[in-house]
């Protein structure tokens, strides 16, 4: 069996490798390129914050409305005879929710474009 000191001798006796002559120049070229590159743009929190607050409030409002609708539906007694107007109500409510969601999406898209410096809907 191989002795531990023999293994140490083998693994510890590596010959030294010299870097190639252009190594320093290559590294410095990359470093200078990176130093010369413009700094990445910071995220414009000041401009984005009002929009984010509006979107957040809108989402909370939508959630509250949905919860209220759910509670109201649970409390409504089951009607034996369905009037046509009653049958239409859930469809109208769903359409309202879809319209609200679309409105919020459009608003966030417009805000995002405004934040990056472009006009909305162009």
């Amino acid at each position, binding site marked *: 069996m191989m002795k531990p000191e023999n293994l140490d001798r083998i693994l*510890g*006796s590596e010959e030294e490798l010299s*870097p190639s002559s252009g*190594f*320093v120049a290559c590294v410095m070229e990359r*470093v200078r390129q990176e130093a010369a590159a413009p700094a990445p743009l910071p995220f414009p929190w000041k401009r984005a914050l009002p929009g984010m607050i509006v979107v957040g409030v809108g989402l909370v409002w939508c959630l509250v409305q949905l919860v209220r609708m759910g509670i109201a539906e649970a409390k409504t007694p089951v009607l034996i005879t369905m009037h046509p107007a009653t049958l239409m109500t859930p469809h109208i409510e769903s359409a309202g929710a879809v319209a609200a969601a679309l409105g919020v999406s459009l608003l966030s898209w417009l805000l995002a474009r405004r934040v990056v410096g472009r006009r909305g809907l162009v």
Partner: protein
Amino acid sequence: MKNTASYESAGSGANADLADVDRVLAGDVNAFEGIVRRWQGPLVNMAWRYCRDRGRAEEMAQEALVRAWRGLKQWRREGSFSTWLFALAANVFRSELKRFPVVDVSIEDAPEPAARAAQEVELSLRQSEDAVRRAVLALPVRYREPVVLFYFHEMDVGAAARTMGMPEGTVKARLARARALLKKRFPHLEDQQAAKELAEKEA
């Protein structure tokens, strides 16, 4: 053989590093060249031990130095610059080798050279030793890195542990396991060493 462990305590080198880091952080990009010149050798050699491919070792060392330049602000100066640099380089080498592994054979499949005639003992021994060094790359990752860094740091467990960010006890345990795996894989290496010594005596 190089003396990487001595870099950790080299006073003048450490002072030069500090001065260069201060200049770089003050906006003097060219000051980084001093750091590159001082550390190119150790980093290329360290990378070589991770991959045993000269071209790739230089690429990995280059990447480590560029990352060091980017992250110079993050060096907290609690430990030595060399410890920070070696830890960063080890991370870079580890992730590079995860992306493109060097070997995909297990330690059991690492080849062991056959015994040679007496006149070829010297050559055979060299081949065997090279096979042992290459077999390190076939060790499971958790055992490979402690071996690479322990011998890179001239058998200093503390330095290897600092570079890996691990407790010394863990490094010692993994080293012992790695040694056991290598000894099991190369049981005849001792015989070849004895044959070489006998041949030298007879000559």
